[in-house]
Protein backbone atom coordinates (compact mmCIF):
# COMPACT_ATOMS: atom_id res chain seq x y z
CA UNK A 1 0.00 0.00 0.00
CA UNK A 2 1.57 3.30 -1.09
CA UNK A 3 1.77 6.29 1.31
CA UNK A 4 -0.52 8.29 -1.02
CA UNK A 5 -3.27 5.66 -0.89
CA UNK A 6 -2.72 5.35 2.87
CA UNK A 7 -3.31 9.06 3.34
CA UNK A 8 -6.38 8.96 1.09
CA UNK A 9 -7.87 6.05 3.08
CA UNK A 10 -7.11 7.95 6.30
CA UNK A 11 -8.93 11.05 5.07
CA UNK A 12 -11.97 9.14 3.79
CA UNK A 13 -12.13 7.30 7.15
CA UNK A 14 -12.06 10.61 9.05
CA UNK A 15 -14.99 11.77 6.90
CA UNK A 16 -16.89 8.50 7.47
CA UNK A 17 -16.35 8.67 11.23
CA UNK A 18 -17.39 12.33 11.30
CA UNK A 19 -20.58 11.80 9.31
CA UNK A 20 -21.36 8.59 11.18
CA UNK A 21 -21.14 10.37 14.55
CA UNK A 22 -23.34 13.21 13.32
CA UNK A 23 -25.93 10.80 11.96
CA UNK A 24 -25.70 8.50 14.98
CA UNK A 25 -25.04 5.43 12.85
CA UNK A 26 -21.32 4.86 13.41
CA UNK A 27 -18.66 5.03 10.75
CA UNK A 28 -18.63 1.38 9.69
CA UNK A 29 -21.67 1.61 7.50
CA UNK A 30 -20.05 4.40 5.47
CA UNK A 31 -16.46 3.15 5.45
CA UNK A 32 -17.19 -0.21 3.80
CA UNK A 33 -18.78 1.30 0.66
CA UNK A 34 -16.06 3.99 0.56
CA UNK A 35 -13.21 1.48 0.70
CA UNK A 36 -14.69 -0.94 -1.82
CA UNK A 37 -16.26 1.45 -4.30
CA UNK A 38 -13.71 4.31 -4.21
CA UNK A 39 -10.46 2.46 -3.51
CA UNK A 40 -11.24 -1.00 -4.87
CA UNK A 41 -10.31 -2.69 -1.58
CA UNK A 42 -11.54 -6.34 -1.56
CA UNK A 43 -14.87 -6.52 0.30
CA UNK A 44 -13.73 -8.87 3.07
CA UNK A 45 -10.67 -6.74 3.87
CA UNK A 46 -12.90 -3.64 3.97
CA UNK A 47 -15.26 -5.41 6.37
CA UNK A 48 -12.32 -6.55 8.53
CA UNK A 49 -10.99 -2.96 8.72
CA UNK A 50 -14.42 -1.56 9.46
CA UNK A 51 -15.17 -3.98 12.30
CA UNK A 52 -11.97 -2.86 14.05
CA UNK A 53 -12.90 0.83 13.68
CA UNK A 54 -16.30 0.02 15.15
CA UNK A 55 -14.59 -1.33 18.31
CA UNK A 56 -12.55 1.87 18.64
CA UNK A 57 -15.49 4.29 18.43
CA UNK A 58 -17.70 2.14 20.66
CA UNK A 59 -15.04 1.88 23.38
CA UNK A 60 -14.47 5.63 23.39
CA UNK A 61 -18.14 6.57 23.56
CA UNK A 62 -19.10 3.77 25.97
CA UNK A 63 -16.42 4.80 28.48
CA UNK A 64 -18.11 8.14 29.10
CA UNK A 65 -21.73 6.93 28.97
CA UNK A 66 -21.04 4.21 31.55
CA UNK A 67 -19.84 6.85 34.03
CA UNK A 68 -22.99 8.92 33.45
CA UNK A 69 -25.13 5.94 34.59
CA UNK A 70 -27.06 6.00 31.30
CA UNK A 71 -25.86 2.57 30.18
CA UNK A 72 -27.55 -0.37 31.91
CA UNK A 73 -24.75 -2.91 32.42
CA UNK A 74 -27.07 -5.84 33.19
CA UNK A 75 -29.34 -5.27 30.21
CA UNK A 76 -26.20 -4.95 28.07
CA UNK A 77 -24.65 -8.18 29.36
CA UNK A 78 -27.90 -10.11 29.03
CA UNK A 79 -28.47 -9.00 25.43
CA UNK A 80 -24.80 -9.55 24.53
CA UNK A 81 -25.53 -13.29 24.87
CA UNK A 82 -27.60 -12.86 21.70
CA UNK A 83 -25.49 -10.27 19.85
CA UNK A 84 -22.16 -12.09 20.26
CA UNK A 85 -23.65 -15.46 19.20
CA UNK A 86 -25.22 -13.74 16.21
CA UNK A 87 -21.97 -11.93 15.36
CA UNK A 88 -19.93 -15.16 15.31
CA UNK A 89 -22.58 -16.78 13.10
CA UNK A 90 -22.61 -13.73 10.81
CA UNK A 91 -18.83 -13.62 10.48
CA UNK A 92 -18.74 -17.34 9.66
CA UNK A 93 -21.55 -16.89 7.14
CA UNK A 94 -19.76 -13.97 5.46
CA UNK A 95 -17.18 -16.40 4.06
CA UNK A 96 -19.79 -18.37 2.12
CA UNK A 97 -22.25 -15.63 1.11
CA UNK A 98 -21.60 -14.08 -2.33
CA UNK A 99 -20.14 -10.53 -2.16
CA UNK A 100 -22.98 -9.27 -4.37
CA UNK A 101 -25.49 -10.45 -1.76
CA UNK A 102 -23.49 -8.66 0.97
CA UNK A 103 -23.56 -5.42 -1.07
CA UNK A 104 -27.34 -5.74 -1.50
CA UNK A 105 -27.81 -6.34 2.25
CA UNK A 106 -25.55 -3.38 3.13
CA UNK A 107 -27.45 -1.15 0.68
CA UNK A 108 -30.75 -2.16 2.26
CA UNK A 109 -29.41 -1.50 5.79
CA UNK A 110 -28.20 1.96 4.65
CA UNK A 111 -31.58 2.82 3.12
CA UNK A 112 -33.36 1.42 6.19
CA UNK A 113 -31.26 3.71 8.40
CA UNK A 114 -32.17 6.62 6.16
CA UNK A 115 -35.85 5.77 6.62
CA UNK A 116 -35.37 5.49 10.39
CA UNK A 117 -33.68 8.92 10.48
CA UNK A 118 -36.55 10.33 8.45
CA UNK A 119 -39.23 8.92 10.74
CA UNK A 120 -37.42 9.50 14.05
CA UNK A 121 -40.04 10.31 16.63
CA UNK A 122 -39.96 12.77 19.52
CA UNK A 123 -38.07 12.23 22.73
CA UNK A 124 -40.92 11.44 25.13
CA UNK A 125 -40.61 8.41 27.40
CA UNK A 126 -42.41 5.11 26.86
CA UNK A 127 -45.43 4.77 29.21
CA UNK A 128 -44.48 3.35 32.62
CA UNK A 129 -45.65 -0.22 33.35
CA UNK A 130 -45.38 -2.66 36.22
CA UNK A 131 -42.18 -4.72 35.76
CA UNK A 132 -43.03 -8.25 34.50
CA UNK A 133 -41.95 -11.25 36.63
CA UNK A 134 -39.38 -12.16 33.94
CA UNK A 135 -37.90 -8.66 33.97
CA UNK A 136 -37.59 -8.82 37.77
CA UNK A 137 -36.14 -12.32 37.67
CA UNK A 138 -33.50 -11.25 35.11
CA UNK A 139 -32.88 -7.92 36.88
CA UNK A 140 -33.72 -6.04 33.65
CA UNK A 141 -35.05 -3.01 35.53
CA UNK A 142 -33.33 0.20 36.50
CA UNK A 143 -33.34 3.96 36.51
CA UNK A 144 -31.23 6.73 35.04
CA UNK A 145 -30.72 10.41 35.81
CA UNK A 146 -32.35 12.50 33.06
CA UNK A 147 -30.51 15.83 32.87
CA UNK A 148 -33.18 17.58 30.82
CA UNK A 149 -36.10 16.54 33.03
CA UNK A 150 -34.01 16.97 36.16
CA UNK A 151 -35.20 13.71 37.74
CA UNK A 152 -34.49 10.00 38.01
CA UNK A 153 -36.46 7.99 35.44
CA UNK A 154 -37.36 4.37 36.28
CA UNK A 155 -37.86 1.74 33.57
CA UNK A 156 -38.23 -2.02 33.09
CA UNK A 157 -37.71 -4.15 29.99
CA UNK A 158 -40.80 -5.53 28.23
CA UNK A 159 -41.18 -8.21 25.53
CA UNK A 160 -37.82 -9.70 26.49
CA UNK A 161 -37.85 -12.75 24.14
CA UNK A 162 -38.62 -10.51 21.15
CA UNK A 163 -35.83 -8.14 22.16
CA UNK A 164 -33.40 -11.03 22.50
CA UNK A 165 -34.37 -12.37 19.06
CA UNK A 166 -33.91 -8.98 17.39
CA UNK A 167 -30.52 -8.65 19.09
CA UNK A 168 -29.39 -11.98 17.64
CA UNK A 169 -30.39 -10.62 14.22
CA UNK A 170 -28.45 -7.40 14.86
CA UNK A 171 -25.43 -9.53 15.75
CA UNK A 172 -25.65 -11.52 12.51
CA UNK A 173 -25.83 -8.31 10.43
CA UNK A 174 -22.89 -6.87 12.37
CA UNK A 175 -20.76 -9.96 11.76
CA UNK A 176 -21.75 -10.21 8.09
CA UNK A 177 -21.11 -6.59 7.16
CA UNK A 178 -18.55 -5.37 9.69
CA UNK A 179 -20.83 -2.65 10.99
CA UNK A 180 -21.99 -1.85 14.53
CA UNK A 181 -25.65 -2.26 13.51
CA UNK A 182 -26.51 0.21 16.27
CA UNK A 183 -29.76 1.11 14.52
CA UNK A 184 -31.02 -2.48 14.84
CA UNK A 185 -29.94 -2.68 18.48
CA UNK A 186 -31.74 0.55 19.30
CA UNK A 187 -34.81 -0.77 17.46
CA UNK A 188 -34.76 -3.87 19.68
CA UNK A 189 -34.42 -1.92 22.94
CA UNK A 190 -36.47 1.18 22.17
CA UNK A 191 -39.06 -0.41 19.89
CA UNK A 192 -39.49 -3.94 21.26
CA UNK A 193 -38.37 -3.71 24.89
CA UNK A 194 -39.75 -0.18 25.39
CA UNK A 195 -36.68 1.20 27.18
CA UNK A 196 -36.14 4.99 27.29
CA UNK A 197 -34.31 6.27 24.20
CA UNK A 198 -31.25 7.48 26.10
CA UNK A 199 -30.85 4.12 27.82
CA UNK A 200 -31.37 2.31 24.49
CA UNK A 201 -28.85 4.31 22.50
CA UNK A 202 -26.09 4.34 25.14
CA UNK A 203 -26.56 0.66 26.03
CA UNK A 204 -26.50 -0.15 22.30
CA UNK A 205 -23.24 1.73 21.91
CA UNK A 206 -21.76 -0.12 24.88
CA UNK A 207 -22.72 -3.50 23.38
CA UNK A 208 -21.39 -2.71 19.92
CA UNK A 209 -17.76 -3.09 21.03
CA UNK A 210 -18.01 -6.63 22.35
CA UNK A 211 -20.32 -7.67 19.50
CA UNK A 212 -17.74 -6.40 17.01
CA UNK A 213 -14.92 -8.10 18.95
CA UNK A 214 -16.72 -11.44 18.58
CA UNK A 215 -16.80 -11.17 14.79
CA UNK A 216 -13.37 -9.48 14.65
CA UNK A 217 -12.00 -12.68 16.19
CA UNK A 218 -13.29 -14.64 13.20
CA UNK A 219 -11.95 -12.10 10.64
CA UNK A 220 -8.60 -12.02 12.44
CA UNK A 221 -8.35 -15.80 12.38
CA UNK A 222 -9.02 -15.80 8.65
CA UNK A 223 -6.29 -13.18 8.05
CA UNK A 224 -8.84 -10.62 6.82
CA UNK A 225 -7.75 -7.85 9.17
CA UNK A 226 -4.90 -6.34 7.13
CA UNK A 227 -2.89 -3.84 9.24
CA UNK A 228 -2.05 -1.72 6.19
CA UNK A 229 -5.77 -1.04 5.67
CA UNK A 230 -7.23 -1.46 9.17
CA UNK A 231 -4.73 0.93 10.81
CA UNK A 232 -5.56 4.09 8.81
CA UNK A 233 -9.25 3.18 8.89
CA UNK A 234 -9.40 2.66 12.68
CA UNK A 235 -7.44 5.83 13.45
CA UNK A 236 -9.32 7.90 10.86
CA UNK A 237 -12.80 6.80 11.93
CA UNK A 238 -11.92 7.37 15.59
CA UNK A 239 -10.64 10.92 14.96
CA UNK A 240 -13.65 11.72 12.75
CA UNK A 241 -16.09 10.35 15.33
CA UNK A 242 -14.49 12.40 18.14
CA UNK A 243 -14.72 15.55 16.03
CA UNK A 244 -18.34 14.77 15.11
CA UNK A 245 -19.29 14.18 18.76
CA UNK A 246 -17.76 17.58 19.65
CA UNK A 247 -19.68 19.38 16.93
CA UNK A 248 -23.01 17.60 17.44
CA UNK A 249 -24.29 19.61 20.44
CA UNK A 250 -23.87 22.84 18.46
CA UNK A 251 -26.04 21.75 15.54
CA UNK A 252 -29.81 21.52 15.34
CA UNK A 253 -31.41 18.18 14.56
CA UNK A 254 -32.82 19.65 11.39
CA UNK A 255 -29.42 20.79 10.13
CA UNK A 256 -27.91 17.38 10.83
CA UNK A 257 -30.73 15.53 9.16
CA UNK A 258 -30.74 17.79 6.11
CA UNK A 259 -27.01 17.26 5.57
CA UNK A 260 -27.02 13.61 6.41
CA UNK A 261 -30.08 12.08 4.73
CA UNK A 262 -29.07 12.69 1.08
CA UNK A 263 -25.60 11.23 1.74
CA UNK A 264 -27.10 8.14 3.35
CA UNK A 265 -29.58 7.62 0.51
CA UNK A 266 -26.89 8.17 -2.15
CA UNK A 267 -24.44 5.70 -0.60
CA UNK A 268 -27.28 3.24 -0.01
CA UNK A 269 -28.30 3.34 -3.68
CA UNK A 270 -24.67 3.14 -4.85
CA UNK A 271 -24.07 0.09 -2.65
CA UNK A 272 -27.28 -1.57 -3.80
CA UNK A 273 -26.33 -0.94 -7.43
CA UNK A 274 -22.92 -2.51 -6.80
CA UNK A 275 -24.70 -5.59 -5.46
CA UNK A 276 -26.82 -5.86 -8.58
CA UNK A 277 -23.73 -5.38 -10.74
CA UNK A 278 -24.72 -1.96 -12.08
CA UNK A 279 -22.18 0.88 -11.87
CA UNK A 280 -23.71 4.28 -11.12
Amino acid at each position, binding site marked *: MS*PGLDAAILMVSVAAGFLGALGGIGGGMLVVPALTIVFGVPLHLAIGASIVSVI*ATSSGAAASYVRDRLTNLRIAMFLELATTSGAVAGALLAAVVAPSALFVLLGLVLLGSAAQQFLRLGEELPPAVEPSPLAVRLELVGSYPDARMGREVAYSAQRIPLGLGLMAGAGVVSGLLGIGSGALKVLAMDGAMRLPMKVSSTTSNFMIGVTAAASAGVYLGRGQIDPTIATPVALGVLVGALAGARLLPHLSNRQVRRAFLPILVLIGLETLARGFGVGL
Partner: protein
Amino acid sequence: MSPDRFRWVVSTVLLGGLAVSTALLLAGLVASWLVGWQGLVLGMPATALARIGLIVLIATPVLRVLVSVIGFILERDRLYALITAAVLGIVLASLLLVR
Protein backbone atom coordinates in the same frame (compact mmCIF):
# COMPACT_ATOMS: atom_id res chain seq x y z
CA MET B 1 -17.56 -3.40 44.86
CA SER B 2 -20.11 -0.56 44.79
CA PRO B 3 -22.06 0.00 41.53
CA ASP B 4 -20.29 3.34 40.99
CA ARG B 5 -16.89 1.75 41.50
CA PHE B 6 -17.88 -1.04 39.07
CA ARG B 7 -18.81 1.55 36.43
CA TRP B 8 -15.57 3.42 37.00
CA VAL B 9 -13.50 0.25 36.51
CA VAL B 10 -15.36 -0.73 33.32
CA SER B 11 -14.97 2.79 31.94
CA THR B 12 -11.25 2.89 32.79
CA VAL B 13 -10.58 -0.48 31.15
CA LEU B 14 -12.22 0.76 27.94
CA LEU B 15 -10.33 4.06 27.91
CA GLY B 16 -7.00 2.43 28.83
CA GLY B 17 -7.28 -0.20 26.09
CA LEU B 18 -8.23 2.44 23.58
CA ALA B 19 -5.28 4.67 24.57
CA VAL B 20 -2.70 1.86 24.34
CA SER B 21 -4.00 0.53 21.02
CA THR B 22 -4.29 4.00 19.49
CA ALA B 23 -0.69 4.79 20.45
CA LEU B 24 0.53 1.54 18.85
CA LEU B 25 -1.54 2.08 15.68
CA LEU B 26 -0.31 5.65 15.37
CA ALA B 27 3.31 4.52 15.82
CA GLY B 28 2.78 1.87 13.14
CA LEU B 29 1.18 4.30 10.71
CA VAL B 30 3.84 7.00 11.17
CA ALA B 31 6.58 4.35 10.82
CA SER B 32 4.97 3.13 7.60
CA TRP B 33 5.20 6.65 6.18
CA LEU B 34 8.87 6.96 7.21
CA VAL B 35 10.25 3.51 6.40
CA GLY B 36 7.36 1.74 4.61
CA TRP B 37 5.09 -1.01 5.99
CA GLN B 38 7.86 -3.60 5.76
CA GLY B 39 10.52 -1.26 7.22
CA LEU B 40 11.88 -2.06 10.67
CA VAL B 41 11.03 -0.05 13.80
CA LEU B 42 12.07 -1.22 17.29
CA GLY B 43 13.31 -4.39 15.61
CA MET B 44 10.01 -5.29 13.99
CA PRO B 45 8.24 -4.40 10.74
CA ALA B 46 5.75 -1.51 10.93
CA THR B 47 2.96 -3.99 10.10
CA ALA B 48 3.80 -6.02 13.22
CA LEU B 49 3.59 -2.91 15.41
CA ALA B 50 0.20 -2.05 13.90
CA ARG B 51 -0.95 -5.68 14.24
CA ILE B 52 -0.22 -5.59 17.99
CA GLY B 53 -2.24 -2.35 18.19
CA LEU B 54 -5.16 -4.02 16.40
CA ILE B 55 -5.04 -7.03 18.70
CA VAL B 56 -5.01 -4.78 21.81
CA LEU B 57 -8.00 -2.93 20.35
CA ILE B 58 -9.95 -6.15 19.73
CA ALA B 59 -9.00 -7.39 23.21
CA THR B 60 -10.28 -4.22 24.92
CA PRO B 61 -14.02 -5.09 24.99
CA VAL B 62 -13.10 -8.69 25.84
CA LEU B 63 -11.15 -7.43 28.86
CA ARG B 64 -14.17 -5.30 29.77
CA VAL B 65 -16.29 -8.48 29.84
CA LEU B 66 -13.69 -10.31 31.95
CA VAL B 67 -13.62 -7.42 34.45
CA SER B 68 -17.44 -7.49 34.55
CA VAL B 69 -17.43 -11.21 35.46
CA ILE B 70 -15.22 -10.35 38.45
CA GLY B 71 -17.39 -7.33 39.27
CA PHE B 72 -20.60 -9.40 39.36
CA ILE B 73 -18.89 -12.05 41.49
CA LEU B 74 -17.84 -9.34 43.97
CA GLU B 75 -21.41 -7.99 43.94
CA ARG B 76 -22.53 -11.57 44.72
CA ASP B 77 -24.85 -11.54 41.71
CA ARG B 78 -24.53 -15.18 40.69
CA LEU B 79 -26.99 -14.92 37.76
CA TYR B 80 -25.05 -12.11 36.11
CA ALA B 81 -21.65 -13.59 36.88
CA LEU B 82 -22.86 -16.65 34.91
CA ILE B 83 -24.41 -14.65 32.05
CA THR B 84 -21.26 -12.55 31.70
CA ALA B 85 -19.02 -15.62 31.83
CA ALA B 86 -21.09 -17.13 29.00
CA VAL B 87 -20.58 -13.98 26.89
CA LEU B 88 -16.85 -14.20 27.61
CA GLY B 89 -16.91 -17.84 26.51
CA ILE B 90 -18.60 -16.99 23.19
CA VAL B 91 -16.13 -14.19 22.40
CA LEU B 92 -13.07 -16.24 23.39
CA ALA B 93 -14.34 -19.16 21.31
CA SER B 94 -14.50 -16.87 18.26
CA LEU B 95 -10.92 -15.75 18.88
CA LEU B 96 -9.47 -19.18 19.55
CA LEU B 97 -11.47 -21.61 17.41
CA VAL B 98 -11.41 -20.01 13.98
CA ARG B 99 -8.16 -20.55 12.17
